[in-house]
């Protein structure tokens, strides 16, 4: 049982981290609370489904297609909607929710409410200390870690990364230093949506695909960003792992726990906001709280 929780928490946490890090990125850089983040993840999962089942491509070309089309969609949404109301945080948030439900309804119209599946990377499972772990889970975990490391390298070692961090710290000063802030926003939006698309490829075969699939991970992602601390990308990753463990623990240990998986994350989020509103690793920001 303990090993079950340990392994499951690690894998689930890795997948949540991949989703949360993209969300935290656009939030900390452009102050856009993109509630449609997991809706992009859903769109990408559907594009993979179209690629494999309708166009009969093999898995990797359809994943590439999914990432490309989701990134284009995300950048389009940025130019058409977010960029225009960026000054009003509430309007951004509400527009994002409306966009998410728009995607949901369009997918519901095209594919119906039926649950669909996309193929695994690999079949079969391996036995670790009496617990069956499928190759897909291991692959998901390794790929998540790989992408997180790549993102870390980009953010901390390249010129683009320092520009992004500069904009996140103070966009006005960054602008004065000759950084094209709007271009950085677009790039970050593309990276963020691209990460959502990759997580669709990773998580899609594990969780089934349906037009309602964006709600549950959104809750986790929001909780992860709050727990990790706004503006801290590493914090979001660690928080995602913590929430993965919390969820596994609740699902395995509490009776009726499968209904409470999302609620547990929400309770964690509220407790964090009440006890330490700046999160685990966030900077203490005076104007955000009273």
């Amino acid at each position, binding site marked *: 049982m303990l090993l079950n929780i340990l392994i499951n928490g690690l894998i689930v946490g890795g997948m949540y981290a991949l989703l949360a890090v993209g969300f935290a990125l656009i939030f900390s850089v452009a102050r856009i609370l993109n509630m449609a983040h997991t809706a992009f993840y859903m769109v990408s999962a559907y594009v993979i489904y179209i690629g494999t089942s309708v166009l009969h491509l093999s898995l990797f070309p359809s994943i590439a297609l999914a990432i490309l089309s989701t990134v284009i969609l995300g950048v389009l949404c940025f130019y058409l909607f977010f960029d225009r*109301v960026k000054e009003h945080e509430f309007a951004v948030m509400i527009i994002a929710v409306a966009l998410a439900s728009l995607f949901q309804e369009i997918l519901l119209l095209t594919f119906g409410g039926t649950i669909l599946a996309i193929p695994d990377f690999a079949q079969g499972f391996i036995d670790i200390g009496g617990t069956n772990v499928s190759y897909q889970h291991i692959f998901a975990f390794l790929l998540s870690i790989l992408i997180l490391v790549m993102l870390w390298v980009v953010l901390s070692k390249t010129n683009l990364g320092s520009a992004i961090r500069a904009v996140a710290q103070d966009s006005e000063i960054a602008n004065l230093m000759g950084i094209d802030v709007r271009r950085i926003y677009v790039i970050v939006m593309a990276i963020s949506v691209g990460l959502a698309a990759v997580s669709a490829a990773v998580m899609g075969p594990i969780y089934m695909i349906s037009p309602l699939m964006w709600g549950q991970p959104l809750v986790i992602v929001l*909780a992860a960003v709050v727990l990790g601390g706004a503006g801290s990308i590493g914090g979001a990753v660690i928080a995602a792992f913590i929430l993965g463990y919390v969820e596994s623990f609740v699902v395995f240990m509490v009776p009726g726990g499968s209904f409470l998986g*999302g609620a547990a994350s929400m309770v964690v989020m509220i407790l964090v906001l009440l006890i330490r509103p700046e999160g685990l690793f966030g900077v203490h920001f005076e104007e955000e709280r*009273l």
Partner: protein
Amino acid sequence: MRGHLFLFYRWLRGEVLSIPGRVIALVFFIGLFLLPVVTQEPYYLRIATLAIIFALFAASWDVLAGFAGQLNLGHGLFFGVSAYAAAFVNINLHWPPWITIPIGAVAAVLVGLIVGIPALRLRGMYLALVTLSFPLILIGLVFVFSDVTGGELGLFGTSVLSSSRVASYYIIAVTFTICVFAMYKFTDARSKYLRIGVLLHALREDEITARASGIYTTKYKLLAFAVSGFFAGIAGGLYTHYLRIAGPSTLELFFSFNALLWSIFGGLGTIYGAVVGTFILYPLTEVLSLFDLGEKIRFVVLAVVLISTLLFMPEGIAVWILDKIEVKCPRCKLVNVFWRKRCRSCRADLYPEKTKIKELL
């Protein structure tokens, strides 16, 4: 007697008939109360009744979000808690609706105060996230304790408001009128009797400055949560006694977003905007769902309406229309109909720029 009538007529002409917004409100309420005289078709009555309940719900959201500036993304929490509380008391203790609805509203006020406590420490997006999470937690609990809450089916079999459909309609319509008027007066920043309206404006515009000016913001924030919860609770109680069911659908995020959609479409920070928005959009959704295609695309339509409102008409449709048909006198600040050239009281020129241009030509 004749003198009183004459005074009433003069008041009516001066304070109501010469201000377009108030004429529209008067016509709206007369229409609301004459509807059962015109038609008693159950389908129309049902749409009208639900529109009234939802308008009350949307208006109570507006008190919190539009006036106090506390963006509440989980407003369905108040509605749902009240619906469940009223249904629970009604089914188990067989108390009549006129007791259970206030009980539900009080339950919603208590919940509003509980939600309001984190709101004292948080603001902006963080508050929105917390309010978003409460109904999600509650919905999880509803499913876990399904022997008390009825699980997915909810609690059903609550007693009706009145055995006759028309009487139920009038009970709901009268409650709605009183509640909306109360909310309008409560939030009125120009009120001579209540300070709260202008304090809420101050709270929304700049909380730190409001505190620096000696306003105890904690008290007024909690008050806004309690008042908003109370009226949403009344709407929830009416809903459960009208449809005879209290189900988990009232706690779903989609239901909360409805309030947001209606209020923003009508106009944020004006109680009448929420009412206008609901009375336009809710019947529209119902009409759309009559058709096969409309049934499928109605949520797409609503999402597009919300996005385009925020992008192109952020002040909302009610305010937009009022701006077009009302002109404020530049000298005495009295409201006039747009076709007047001179103010009805002080005879000042209502459109000084236009006259100037004409003189120049």
